[in-house]
């Protein structure tokens, strides 16, 4: 995979040679994350977040398996079993807080990872498959996180399950049947809880499988880089180990500090107090919201308030799902041959507006469904879709990009001064310079 100058695995110790001849696992590791994987030498810290997401998944699986040893997926005892974990199980409070804050950590690093990919054009050819597999992981993450949040069987768990499955109820004709099929009844109850627990345990391993495909697909062209210019020669790369193991290790250390602060000092900051009230099918909490990482999508859902040909409810659901499914088409919506936003002055402005737009949607999603939040959500939703469906296709045609460096090593060694001719906008392969 990757480049012809990649180092071959040459075990020195006879035992490793013996092992490698029979099972080339050391060779696989060496070529994937060792000295045998050449990586552009100019990656910045935004390239840490893929590894951090992998770390987050590992943390979630480890703490999750341990929590499952004490959790009880019975509607009568689920809530108490979580309190049992918090009060009775040795260090159970730590394990549960690590798991609940670990979910937020997972989403934070994944969002930064996605933003990085959009800014630096990592979704463009030849990395479309990497991008789409990443979106599949993102969708699986959202499903897993949602079902995990239902398991404590508190008020937010119960009403979250009711509202989110209610989204499927908006589908014309079959909606209600689908909702009842998902819940295993007319409202969330024992069948819902048991199947959500089963799937919540299963999906992380599916995610791990798709991550393997994601990395496999990535290692064929190799990593993108902040210039977006293709790797051309051995001078443009350094071996993954020790250069990026060290850099990722440092990033992981910093990230763990933030996670530890959350777990030990602010464990409930991102949660909802009302979820410490046991589920009650007869009383909806006055203000129900999903977890923060769903807020932008929740705002899009609620931005549609009047019927227009189709019912408003259906518009909201369609818009919410489209806001993610749209991203699958991003490599073909943005046809600009320049990958990196650093060389796209117009794109860069609209990109940062889009980032602010997503943050605004996030704020709106966490607020009650009343003015001015609904109106702001509507405007922000309009920009969200306009960015992908109107702005990016037009920019691809009209934007005058800045000159790209001839190579990664030139950009690293000589800086901006020695940059070469403008990017080839006549339709040649992207970012060849």
């Amino acid at each position, binding site marked *: 995979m990757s480049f012809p100058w990649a180092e071959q695995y040459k075990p020195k110790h006879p035992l490793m040679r013996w092992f490698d001849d029979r099972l080339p696992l050391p060779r696989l590791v060496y070529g994937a994350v060792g000295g045998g994987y050449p990586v552009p030498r100019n990656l910045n810290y935004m390239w840490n977040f893929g590894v951090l997401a992998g770390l987050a998944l590992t943390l979630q699986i*480890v703490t999750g398996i*341990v929590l499952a*040893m*004490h959790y009880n997926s019975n509607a009568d005892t689920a809530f108490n079993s979580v309190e*049992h974990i918090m*009060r*009775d*199980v*040795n*260090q*159970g409070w*730590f*394990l549960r807080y690590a798991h609940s804050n670990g979910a937020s950590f997972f989403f934070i690093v994944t969002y930064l990872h996605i933003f990085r990919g959009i800014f630096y054009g990592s979704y463009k050819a030849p990395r479309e498959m990497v991008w789409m597999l990443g979106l599949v992981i993102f969708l699986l993450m959202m499903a897993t996180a949602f079902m995990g949040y239902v398991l404590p069987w508190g008020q937010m768990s119960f009403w979250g399950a009711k509202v989110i499955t209610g989204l499927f109820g908006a589908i014309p004709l079959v909606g209600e049947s689908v909702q009842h099929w998902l819940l295993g009844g007319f409202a969330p109850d024992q069948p819902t809880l048991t199947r959500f627990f089963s799937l919540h345990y299963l999906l992380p391993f599916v995610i791990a499988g798709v991550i393997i495909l994601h990395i496999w697909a990535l290692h064929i062209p190799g990593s993108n880089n902040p210039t977006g210019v293709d790797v051309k020669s051995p001078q443009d790369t350094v071996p993954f180990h020790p250069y990026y193991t060290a850099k990722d*290790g440092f990033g992981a*250390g910093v990230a*763990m500090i933030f996670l530890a602060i959350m777990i030990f000092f602010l464990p409930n900051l991102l949660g909802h107090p009302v979820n410490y009230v046991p589920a009650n099918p007869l009383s909806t909490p006055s203000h129900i919201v999903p977890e923060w990482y769903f807020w932008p999508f929740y705002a899009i859902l609620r931005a549609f308030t009047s019927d227009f040909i189709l019912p408003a409810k259906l518009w909201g659901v369609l818009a919410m799902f489209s806001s993610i499914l749209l991203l699958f088409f991003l490599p073909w919506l943005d046809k600009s041959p320049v990958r990196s936003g650093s060389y796209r002055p117009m794109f860069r402005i609209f990109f940062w507006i889009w980032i602010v737009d997503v943050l605004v949607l996030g704020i709106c999603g966490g607020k009650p469904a009343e003015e001015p939040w609904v109106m702001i959500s509507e405007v922000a939703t309009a920009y969200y879709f306009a960015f992908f469906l109107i702005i990016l296709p037009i920019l691809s045609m009209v934007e005058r990009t800045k000159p790209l460096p001839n190579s990664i090593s030139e950009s690293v060694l000589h800086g901006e001064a020695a940059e070469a001719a403008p990017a080839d906008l006549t339709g040649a392969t992207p970012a060849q310079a």
Partner: protein
Amino acid sequence: MAAVETNEGPAHAVEEDGVRRRDFLNIGAVAFAGVGGAALLYPLVNQMNASADVLALAQIDVDVSAIQPGQAIKTIWRKQPIFIRNLTPAEQASANAVDVSTLRDPQTLAERTKEGHRNWLITLGVCTHLGCVPLGAAEGETRGEYGGYFCPCHGSVYDTAARIRKGPAPRNLEVPEYSFTSATAVRIG
């Protein structure tokens, strides 16, 4: 310190003792990560130990007033059977008649009961061989050839002091920690 800082560069990368700064950083960083990983292992392992609610049930009070001489009851302590047996004078005498030095696990009846309550034999109902529940505590069950308990799984025979006399079990039935809180009330654990 300032002088050291200004001396940095390729020519000074290797210190006089042949150790580079980078070696120090490398060992320091990996050691720190190793200690952190080991610290994380502690809760992951310890969570499988008995939790606080299990430990809270580790002590029970039993009323033994209704147990007649010659009778025994089974009760449960820490999810394990406990035999409480009111020994008849004949059973006590037969236990005391044994030459302790001939036993596999030498103990006298006095060592296995409490002062002033010599007739109360309180043991775990768990065979010391492989953990089955021996017969002999309930009405109608065989008590084996030594009149104590008999384990049907692999044929271990216990006497009236619940000492191992025959069969594969290595030790006498275990006597739990207990005390009499009154003449007829026992606190086990």
